[in-house]
């Protein structure tokens, strides 16, 4: 079978165009709202084969397929396609850039219709719930009453949980990967370091930098910190050890070690494709997210909903105890849940690494295919 998926256009959908706008969890309104999204495969006649794949913090709607136009490289190409775990021959796959993002959906870099200028920090604070409730508008627009699955890693996993919390009757399979019911102080702390790095850059200018130089140095440092937390000590040892760069001179503050050069490179490439204000808004949304009290689970449980919770052994940013806590909350309420900690070595990013994907793919493929 041809495992390649053809080129996929990024589409957009705009709503909340009336003066009322869309009411956010904070009480503020936002509108109009545009969502950038991509779809793969074909929606079947009774619209029962749709799976919503949700991206992580810095992801976008381009989950699979070759790059066309100004798309970023696909972030889960090995998972989505004909015959793959998220089989486009069987399922209709949807991926939507979240609001607050900078990849086609309305965010702080979008034009504020009231001023004709980019929102900057006038953009309202958004939450994971706001992201989900806006996604629901698009899913309704596509005529889908029930999603066969909601799947995502890291923030995508939080979105999957929020989906079932908001719309328990509209979801069948929930697959949070390397996710949590709430950020720990350690996770909030790393995000805060990133935010402070951005805001400490004088070019940030209280978020009103559009049209001029953007706070690239601050954003690059934020990404470097983030990137360290996505890897494991073992994977860094394997990839860099204490090897020196080719042009190291020694006794200077230039990048002597390969790991320094690598982080700088990752920081510099990130600033070309990501907006500093989006970094602030989305990390804040993740920090606010908290479903840990289980109050979102209806008194009668969640009949007809199944969970597959996946964690990675080497993930110290979203450690497996957080996934286990998630499953405990479900099993306490007698909700159908499967949990697996995959023995993968690449830390938090393991779910994005193709060489680690075999077990993750196998679990997801069979879990989705289970007959009722």
């Amino acid at each position, binding site marked *: 079978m041809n495992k390649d998926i053809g080129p996929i256009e990024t589409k957009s959908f705009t709503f909340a165009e009336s003066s009322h706008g869309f009411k956010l969890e904070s009480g503020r309104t936002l509108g109009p709202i545009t969502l950038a999204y991509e779809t793969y495969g074909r929606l079947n006649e009774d619209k029962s084969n749709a799976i919503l794949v949700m991206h992580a913090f810095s992801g976008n709607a381009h989950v699979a397929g070759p790059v066309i136009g100004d798309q970023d490289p696909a972030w889960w190409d090995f998972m989505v396609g004909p015959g793959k775990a998220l089989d486009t021959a069987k399922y209709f796959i949807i991926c939507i850039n979240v609001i607050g993002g900078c990849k086609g959906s309305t965010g702080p870099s979008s034009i504020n219709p009231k001023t004709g200028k980019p929102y900057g920090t006038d953009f309202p604070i958004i939450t994971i719930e706001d992201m989900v409730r806006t996604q629901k508008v698009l899913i309704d627009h596509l005529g889908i009453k029930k999603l066969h699955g909601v799947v995502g890693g890291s923030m995508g996993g939080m979105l999957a949980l929020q989906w079932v919390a908001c719309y328990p009757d509209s979801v069948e399979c929930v697959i949070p990967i390397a996710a949590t019911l709430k950020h720990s102080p350690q996770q909030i702390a790393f995000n805060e370091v990133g935010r402070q790095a951005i805001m400490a850059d004088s070019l940030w200018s209280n978020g009103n930098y559009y049209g001029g130089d953007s706070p690239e140095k601050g954003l690059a440092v934020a990404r470097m910190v983030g990137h360290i937390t996505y890897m494991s000590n073992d994977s860094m040892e394997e990839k860099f050890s204490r090897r020196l760069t080719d042009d190291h001179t020694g006794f200077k503050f230039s990048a002597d070690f390969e790991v320094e050069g690598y982080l700088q490179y990752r920081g510099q490439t990130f600033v070309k494709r990501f907006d500093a204000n989006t970094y602030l808004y989305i990390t804040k949304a993740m920090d606010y997210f908290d479903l840990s009290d289980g109050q979102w689970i209806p008194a009668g449980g969640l009949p007809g909903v199944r969970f597959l919770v996946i964690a990675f052994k080497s993930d110290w940013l979203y450690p497996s105890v957080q996934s286990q806590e998630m499953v405990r909350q479900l099993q*306490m309420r007698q909700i159908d849940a*499967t949990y697996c900690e995959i023995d993968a070595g690449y830390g938090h990013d393991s779910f994005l690494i193709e060489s680690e994907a075999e077990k993750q793919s196998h*679990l997801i493929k*069979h879990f989705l295919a289970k*007959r009722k």
Partner: protein
Amino acid sequence: MKLTIERLDHQVICEIVGTGSKVLDLGCGNGDLLHLLAERRGAKAQGVELNNDAIHACVEKGLSVFHSDIDSGLPHYPDQSFDYVILNQSLQEAKKVETVISEALRVGKKVIIGFPNFAHFEARIRMFFCGRAPIVSSLPYEWYSTPNLRFLSIKDFKSFCAIKGYKILVSHFLDSQGPVRVLPNLFAQNAIFVITK
């Protein structure tokens, strides 16, 4: 096809478990027993398993499974939330046997326990005449590579139940051919008990 002892114990357990029961299998391995119970008995089946590959095999069979060891895998299950909790060929690998059984009896109305009988005559012969730790078909491991931490006989288990005040509702004794009716502590390779508080 000749049925192996494992299949025999699965059959026995399958006959014990009522149709549509809610079942938790502690140490469910690759899910063969749970799959059988789901298919034949329409059981609502869940497992707890530590081995990664075994979990994948369970998911492949459409089973719900929780990745954990059985010593720490129970506290979050509500009281009496299962009709049966099964400990088949897994009890002898538990570190905290008393806790595992009392937890199983808390979350399950009945507990099915299957284990190899250490006092089987073949084991006794190897012990008595050869002076060697037993290696028999139901206990096939060398002393240095066995996963078994506990070595118990049918009599040992009965006495344990008496001490703890657990009621034995049903008992089955098997060798490789089928049921053993005479002197089970001597002739049975495997025992299956159904107990309750």
